[in-house]
């Protein structure tokens, strides 16, 4: 009896410190408000933004494959059913990067807000700031080029503005719930990008790993932004500056194909790195599986590959001088297949027969082929050196129409021929619109399956001519722009949805 009473008393007393008993902290997360208070933590937070770029909604797949599916380079063959809607330009089948991009932008904003009071040397702080401003600008650029009209091909009647520019961090539920965003104008967006990049470039390292931001990467982005905004001389200046650095080097006709087989592409100025097998996007949505079902180069009878959902059109193959008997017949032959003949353009060699394990055999693109030692594990180039040549050529051509004159046109032609010769093609002598068309055509051939074409057509205001079988998409069609997620429109009187949604 007495023992029991004592025991009970002890137990009751033991529980009086209950509030302390309820104090259980997570072990795999840290507190939000104090997270960015050490150098290591900020380094890791910076890494997280880079890591976020690997997302399928961004460079993991969509910015390359979905974008090209919407354009005129390829054909979604319905092997897994993926990209079919995008390839047909169905209403609502478009890039969906809004939420992913803004969550990364907020990470940048949080870090930028933490830097002034954070530990770290001035050099560390400026490096963080430069990288965050660069990455934020990159994300804003991808957003504005996708969700808004591009200044060089504005359609004022349908223009509902640019994207929302938010540079202050969201760090509490209260300020998040009371925030009613509003779209900036397209011009404001591009001005913001230029300001940000001009601020970021001096803070970035002159050279270093292409997996991280460098000054060259900043200039390459600014050159592309300028091209989209019609700032021709800025495009020329920045392209020239970026071409001059040793970050990335143009491959030659002899090294072009092997360049695509190397883990880090020799031309890369900035590429998204997928370093370890744990980062593999996987057999369903990686770029390799999207573009080819092959498991080994040159071996269409080896299984173990992916789907090969999105393949080049015969038109594109012909432009690469890739051919086989009856290439014009759709669809391509199935069980037996003729051998392919390649022309002088070395870029054609990245196309070869795929497998018939999941249906009809097509010629497939092998730009992404498990370069990092495992199937479906590829780094993704964001800026390659060759783009700067073409940016500069195009900008110089545009300048030649106004202030630049013949000098600029000659410079443009020289850049195109530099590229052509490094791709196994003879030099051409072209002027005027013929030269311009050649520049755009080289962009198409150089960057097919890399996500440029849709936006090149969009910024040039050109209709998208779909072959085979899908109906064409006019430049004025509302399907050129995706819908802004309805959740960001609902209940917000400030926010305008894109035309037609």
């Amino acid at each position: 009896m007495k023992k029991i009473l004592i025991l009970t008393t002890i137990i009751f007393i033991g529980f009086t410190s209950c509030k302390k008993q309820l104090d259980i902290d997570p072990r795999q997360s840290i507190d939000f408000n104090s997270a960015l208070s050490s150098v290591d933590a900020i380094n890791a937070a910076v890494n997280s933004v880079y890591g976020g770029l690997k997302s399928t909604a961004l460079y993991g797949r969509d910015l390359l494959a979905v974008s090209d599916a919407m354009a005129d380079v390829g054909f979604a063959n319905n092997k897994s059913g993926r990209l079919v809607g995008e390839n047909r330009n169905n209403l609502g089948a478009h890039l969906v990067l809004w939420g992913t991009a803004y969550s990364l932008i907020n990470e940048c904003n949080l870090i930028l807000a933490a830097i002034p009071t954070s530990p770290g040397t001035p050099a560390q702080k400026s490096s963080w700031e430069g990288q965050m401003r660069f990455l934020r600008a990159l994300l804003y650029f991808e957003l504005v080029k996708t969700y808004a009209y591009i200044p060089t091909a504005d359609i004022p009647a349908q223009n509902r503005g640019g994207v929302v520019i938010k540079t202050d961090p969201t760090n509490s539920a209260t300020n998040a719930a009371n925030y009613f965003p509003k779209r900036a104008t397209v011009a404001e967006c591009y001005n913001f990008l230029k300001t940000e990049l001009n601020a970021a470039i001096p803070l970035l390292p002159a050279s270093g790993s292409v997996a991280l931001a460098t000054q060259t990467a900043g200039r390459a982005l600014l050159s592309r932004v300028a091209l989209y905004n019609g700032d021709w001389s800025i495009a020329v200046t920045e392209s020239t500056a970026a071409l001059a650095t040793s970050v990335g080097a143009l491959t030659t006709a002899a090294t072009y194909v092997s360049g695509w087989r190397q883990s880090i592409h020799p031309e890369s100025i900035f590429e998204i790195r997928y370093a370890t097998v744990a980062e593999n996007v996987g057999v369903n949505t990686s770029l390799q599986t999207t573009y080819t079902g092959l498991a080994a180069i040159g071996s269409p009878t080896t299984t173990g590959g992916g789907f090969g959902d999105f393949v080049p059109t015969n038109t594109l193959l012909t432009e690469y001088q890739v051919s086989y008997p009856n290439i014009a017949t759709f669809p391509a032959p199935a069980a037996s297949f003729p051998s392919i003949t390649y022309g002088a353009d070395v870029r054609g060699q990245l196309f070869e027969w795929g497998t018939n394990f999941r249906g009809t055999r097509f010629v497939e693109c092998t730009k992404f082929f498990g370069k990092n030692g495992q199937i479906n594990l590829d780094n993704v180039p964001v800026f390659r050196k060759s783009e700067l040549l073409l940016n500069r050529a195009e900008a110089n051509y545009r300048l030649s129409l106004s202030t630049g004159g013949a000098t600029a046109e000659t410079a443009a032609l020289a850049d195109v021929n530099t590229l052509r010769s490094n791709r196994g093609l003879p030099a051409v002598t072209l002027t005027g619109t013929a030269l311009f068309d050649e520049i755009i055509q080289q962009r198409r051939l150089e960057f097919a399956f890399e996500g440029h074409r849709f936006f090149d057509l969009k910024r040039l205001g050109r209709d998208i001519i779909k072959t085979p079988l899908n109906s064409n998409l006019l430049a004025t069609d509302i399907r050129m722009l995706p819908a802004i997620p309805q959740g960001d429109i609902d209940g917000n009187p400030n926010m305008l949805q894109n035309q037609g949604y």
Partner: protein
Amino acid sequence: MRKLLTLLICSLLLVGNTWAQNRTITGKVLDDKKAPVSNASIIVKGTTNGTYTKEDGTFSINIQSTAKTLVISSVNFESQEVSIGKNSSFNISLYPADNKLDEVVVVGYQVQKKREVTAAISKISGDEISNMPIQSFDRAMQGRAAGVAVQSNNGIPGGPVTVRIRGIGSIQAGNEPLYIVDGVQINNSTVALNGSTGTQTNPLNFLNPNDIESIEILKDASAAAVYGARAGNGVVLITTKRGKMGKSNFTANVYWGSMSTLKLFDVLNTQEYLTQRRAALQNANPLVAPATIRATALGEMNLSSGLTDDQIAALPSYDWQREAFGTGNVFNAEMSMSGGSEKTTFYLSGSYNKTQAIVKPSDFQRGTVLMSLKHNVSKKLSVETQLNVSTVRQEATFSTDGSFLGSPTFSSSLMLPNNPIYNTNGSFYGLPSASATQPFAGILNQNIIANIYLNSNWQRTNQLVGNFKINYEIAKGLRYAGTFGMDYRLGQSDRYTDPRTPDGVGVRGRSSVNSNWNTNFITNHVLNYSTTLKDKHNLSALAGLEYRKDEAEQIGLSGTGFATPEFRTANAAATPESITGFWSGSATFSTFAKFNYNYDAKYLFSATVRRDGSSRFGENNLFATFPAFSVGWNLSKESFINKKNFFNNLVLRASWGRTGNDQIGNFDSRGLYGGASRIYNNGSAITPSQLGNPDLRWETREEVNLGLDFAFFKNRINGSIDVYDRRNKDLLLGRPIYSINGFTSVTQNLGEVQNKGIEFALNVDVVKTTNFRWQSRFNIAYVHNELKRLYDTIKILPANNSLQVGAPLGAVFTQRYAGVNPATGRPMWFDINGNITYLPVAADRVLLNGSTVLPRYTGGWTNSFQYKGFELEFFFQYEYGRIFSDGQVAFLSEIGGRSFNALRTIVDNSWKKPGDMVPWARPINGNTEVRGAGRFGGDANFRKMDYIRLKQLTFSYNLPAANLKSFGLTSARFYIQGINLWTYADWDGYDPEFTGTATGTIPQSRNTTVGLQIGF
């Protein structure tokens, strides 16, 4: 000693009456199972003349010639009167007492007489669910308790079950009830160590259902409030069997059975598929020559484009479904022993169960040991323990659900029928090693049968659930009870993807192993006082406190690159692939008190209060208080109502209570940076994962319940009616914020959901004679579920438009399918104005009738017939009032839109030529017409899910005890049982009973078992 006394008394009685008797009658008293009843009293009615039965149930008594009637009675049996007449030998069967009136129920930290309970509680006795070929008892609750909706997630043996008591009140927090086994709160999180590619395991697998004495379900808030913040979804109390003082009893029980498929899909053969695919390709490419289309379709099937029509007609078809779905079997053996002395009683049991599912290699193997021991140290002090140790091993198929190409359940019905399964020499067709010569045709390009035999994928759960209890009577009526309990679980999984299979060939095999530890410690200390004043005022009160701590930890790794398929352990991997780790924990501290009062069991009152503190709640809301009150009025005790004693029981009940739902994430209230998956450039990363909300707290449930318990015709008709209105408030909900913030939601307590319903349970002893008895039990529940409020003035949640004020949870908000244009075969929809459109837009969406998470009507009906030793029982279970879509059928309805097989009924009812008036559109490659929506947009794939199912049919025979005696047995029962023998449903899929999408799941099966149960 007692027996001696009895004998003495008997002898005295006999001696005293010797001279007056004029004849002797003999007889035997048996129970309903034909086992002898000893110590039953036999008295001549109206006299003091009587005797007791012996151990073998026999008796002999001298009676006077005037004696007309014998009264036979025994504890736990209904007394029976037998007219004597001219017979001198009697065989008398006693029925177990329908002591519904004196039945006790466990109500949380105490037991109460059922008639004194003023809350809504359902009880299922262990007998009702014994020997069903199920792995966990939650499945057995299906259809047996009004208002408890039980749905098997799938047909995986030992897989999880969804249990919803009185509807569904939470949107993002858990809806699972709290399970308490012998006072230990069970951690009811389902551990699926390999995600959807591993097996699924039910947290209640640890307990052999045959070890259960009773299940009590606390349904309303006043019943559950004593469990406070954990009780918001109802509480299920499980009491395991205990030892009884007396002779040691042994029972042995064994059953075997087989399982078969309920249904296989009727899919197309090779020729029909080719026709269908050609039509789909041609419809998508109208300008392409038919010959080219023919060549393309043949090419896709890896057939030569030069085949003639005759050659095509001769092509074989292979039935992959029949190969993947086979028969399963079940074997269960168990033995138990119980007994004890005045000091110590015990119950020991051990069991082994092996169940092989209808889809190989999915299976379940379990061994359990239960020990229950009670020792009376002194008259005042007793100690007690229940200890359940179990090990469960489950092998899984390729994946439990989802559209995995390698999954036999997903792919077998969709595989192109011209793909062979085996080579002529019996080896598997189309393994990667032979890909050059044996390519697979179609999207589904894996030999799924080979996957079954080559891969391995198992999970093992070792679990210990135990408690140690001290009971001490401090003073008369005042008792202390202390419990220390633990639910400890170790889960391990090992998945090996064989390098010979398509998914393994690229990486030369992959092994992933995971280990998961769950520790749940609970202790509670309760003071219980009860007394009766002036014979009429019955008072009881209890006060207690409780502490519970949960921890979960997991590590896992995977590696690739195995020399040969014989090497299957992770250490043999050449390349480490990933390492995972996980830790989470929570703690609660609670105090509670309860007070019951009744006046002569006529006027009843009860009050409860509990205060909970939980580490899950935000720092501003760490503690919560949950009160409840209930009153009852036993009308049968009022002479003005029950003048002729017509009612055996008639209790009117009313209650109000508040409980909480703390099933929110352990750290949901915190603002966090996670060290998650965003590694980059070989460096680690930290990522903001959620915004904090220090105000975050439990969900509140308030419930009003009105009930009536009734019993009349000598208890032969009894039952209860309950109506309730339950409001779940302050729901845990991710309040959408504009994604421009970088987050899409913040977790807050918002909104309100109402569940109101009516429950009716009726038990009838339809026929009750000496030899024949027919009992019938019926229950039905209706629940109306409605979202009453969101936040601010929002009527439709921006991020999830299916959440609408006025609609039930799980509502589907989409466009209505309008059928097919008879002229073109294109699918059509209705726009918001009811006009036909080919391209429905968001504004055309409407709420679909009958779209809800839970069926509106659920229930069951049991009938049992006993004739002498024979017993026949059948049990129907039903659901009504819900629509849903079947994911597997959706794939099969593409009818050629992609290169996989199709369901014949859809093909037959699809558009083929102008003028066809049919429900389904023409096939088209890619499934989307030019400037049209996908063929399954809107509600095209939704169907009624209603069903009635003959869940259980049992025929048993209790061998007469007399025949058993020579074998040394006291009882023997032989039975044959069928599960899911018949279903009425208008459902295209394998089975209307599932949760989730039904894509690639293992469906329920039809089971037949035979068993033998003996006692000695």
